[in-house]
């Protein structure tokens, strides 16, 4: 392994995509994501690919649709308002069963909001911001290295299941720099027998569409999609559990918040409070059984989010209301560990498990 | 010398071929096809010049004009 390089999150995503064999990127500038574009605008032509600046996020996601139809490994990236504009396109990509990687470097919201770090697009991407029955695999890295690893993983999952995969970042992770190693493994080869590449070696045309007019065609289509989604739920759940076995107070956090929460858990442990951290890495499929397990000893659960409370619903569903689940949240910033630590301490006193 | 073939079941009875045939040898049939339309048909194929204007104007691409044997 070579020496680590100091890299900005956004650039790391871009380089990881290249390492994963992605040669086509369609995007539209938006802070705090623009460096993904800028980096790829420079790098992709060097790699024999193309960066195309779309005229909007709506166009970008549909260019992605087209490039995926044509058999390319393809990515787009944006930030919250831009991702909203992609919702129709995402529903189409999911329905057409096209592999594609989408990156959301989330920012302050709703509306124009601002360029702050945020985790307020959980509902949008995890539950479904587009119309209809579909699911988006959502990965939530927490460091620049993981931004790289998860971008690579996103392409693998997208290929394996022919489905769109979203990588979550936030303004902080997109902008911050950390030492990283770029992946050296060869990207998986592309199988595209289904792609609309022209009928060159085929007798029958390949058709990619999302229209199912007879009701039972639509029903069968949805059933097929959801059979695939169930398979993904079985195969692809990821999480980490830190000191959860004996945890009285379980903190649940993802992405950048999981790092802060981990520090808070360590502070609590030093203080004699048995705290633990459960970190979902795949937000969908949500690692619900693992969380249920991790909470088996807990007297209380705190979800820490940079939102008004979104993942908390999945946490509640997973915990099955065994113990109270409460929200710790801040908006517009990544809080200090001691803020979460205070929340843990307070909870520990309430449920009488404090040292 | 020409045969004019209609894919009768696909005809929608729009009458474009009738209107544009220079020889005026196409007419709508009395009967209806399964779709419920009166299909077009050639009355006197011997007068057909093979100009294919009927086919060119047929919006449902159901006419073929081929050089046949003796009329």
């Amino acid at each position, binding site marked *: 392994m070579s020496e680590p390089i100091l890299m900005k999150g956004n650039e790391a995503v871009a380089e990881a995509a290249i390492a994963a064999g992605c040669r*086509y990127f369609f995007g539209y500038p938006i802070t705090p994501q623009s460096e993904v574009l800028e980096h790829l605008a420079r790098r992709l032509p060097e790699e024999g690919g193309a960066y*195309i600046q*779309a*005229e*909007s996020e*709506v*166009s*970008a996601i*549909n*260019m*992605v*649709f*087209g*490039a*995926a*139809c*044509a*058999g*390319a490994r*393809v990515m787009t990236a944006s930030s919250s308002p831009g991702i909203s504009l992609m919702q*129709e*396109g995402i529903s*189409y990509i999911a329905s057409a069963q096209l592999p594609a990687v989408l990156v959301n470097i989330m920012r302050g919201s709703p509306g124009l909001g601002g360029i702050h770090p945020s985790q307020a697009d959980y509902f949008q991407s995890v539950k479904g911001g587009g119309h209809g029955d579909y699911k988006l695999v959502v990965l939530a890295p927490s460091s620049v290295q993981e931004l790289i690893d998860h971008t690579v993983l996103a392409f693998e999952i997208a290929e394996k299941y022919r489905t769109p995969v979203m990588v979550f970042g936030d303004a902080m992770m997109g902008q911050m720099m950390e030492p990283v190693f770029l992946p050296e493994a060869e990207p998986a080869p592309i199988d595209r027998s289904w792609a*609309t*590449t*022209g*009928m*060159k070696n085929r007798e029958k*045309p*390949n*058709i*990619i*569409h*999302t*229209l199912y007019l007879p009701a039972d065609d639509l029903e069968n289509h949805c059933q097929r999609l959801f059979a695939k989604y169930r398979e993904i739920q079985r195969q692809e759940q990821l999480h980490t559990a830190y000191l959860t076995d004996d945890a009285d107070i379980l903190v649940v956090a993802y992405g950048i918040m999981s790092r802060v929460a981990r520090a808070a858990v360590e502070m609590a442990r030093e203080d004699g409070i048995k705290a633990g951290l459960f970190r979902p890495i795949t937000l969908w499929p949500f690692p619900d059984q693992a969380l249920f397990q991790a909470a088996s000893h807990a007297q209380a659960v705190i979800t820490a989010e940079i939102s008004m409370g979104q993942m908390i619903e999945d946490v509640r569903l997973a915990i099955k209301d065994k113990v109270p689940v409460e929200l710790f949240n801040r908006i517009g910033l990544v809080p200090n560990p001691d803020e979460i630590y205070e929340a843990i301490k307070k909870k520990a006193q309430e449920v009488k498990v404090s040292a | 010398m*020409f045969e004019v073939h209609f*894919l009768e*079941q*696909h005809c*929608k009875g*729009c*009458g*474009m071929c009738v*209107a544009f045939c220079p020889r005026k040898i196409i007419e709508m049939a009395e009967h209806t096809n399964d779709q419920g339309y009166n299909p077009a048909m050639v009355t006197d194929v011997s007068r057909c*010049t*093979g*100009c*294919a*204007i009927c*086919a*060119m*104007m047929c*919006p*449902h*691409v159901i*006419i*073929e*004009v*081929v*050089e046949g044997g003796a009329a």
Partner: protein
Amino acid sequence: MPKGYQRPSTLVERPWHFCPGCNHGIVHRLVAEVIDEMGLQKETVGVGSVGCGVFSYEYFNFDGIGPSHGRAPAVATGVKRVLPDRLVFTYQGDGDLAAIGTTEMVHCAVRGELISIIFINNTLYGMTGGQMAPTTMMGQVTTTTPRGRGQAQGHPFRVCEMLATAEGAAYVARTAVYSPAQVVRTKKAIRRAFETQMAGLGFSLVEVLSACPTNWGMNPLEALKFVEEEMTPVFPLGELKVPEGVK
């Protein structure tokens, strides 16, 4: 003149959903004929649209894509950038292209994207039941202009004239299919558009004035007459831009 006529091999033989006399059918056929004649069946990726042309991928016998409403030019861009040597075209109605898809169409022209657009202007939204389109003519009654299109709705959108101002637009033509002669001209225009693309000369678009007998409340022949007499004065026929290479 060659005699006789055979269905182009790039058309699947199946009944079409178009209404009796709908001009969509004629244009579908012409596209297939041109691709046949250029020998490009195996090199073509067709991008459909949402509108009465929505099933084009079921009728054409080459690779086809059904994109979302209005975004066919963006989808075609994605395809073409990945497969620069294929013939990539979109088939769009006036609602799809000139309303919701305006941005995508304009920027394909601006970028000089090497795709071709076959644009069916029937002055309204056919598939959804005859609402006003940007191309609806002044005074024309539609289901959303019950008193006829008036000042408050603006003036009909002349797509060719607008796109011709973009440097990247290489071939821009407006044709019709209300007579055999116009059908021949339309076919030639489609061919030139595809040639423009394959020669790498820039973006190309053919607007075809088309009858929608159903929503116009006319029989097919009245509708053709309407195209000739009412539409062509508002949407003059002709080639607005022809690149050197395909003349």
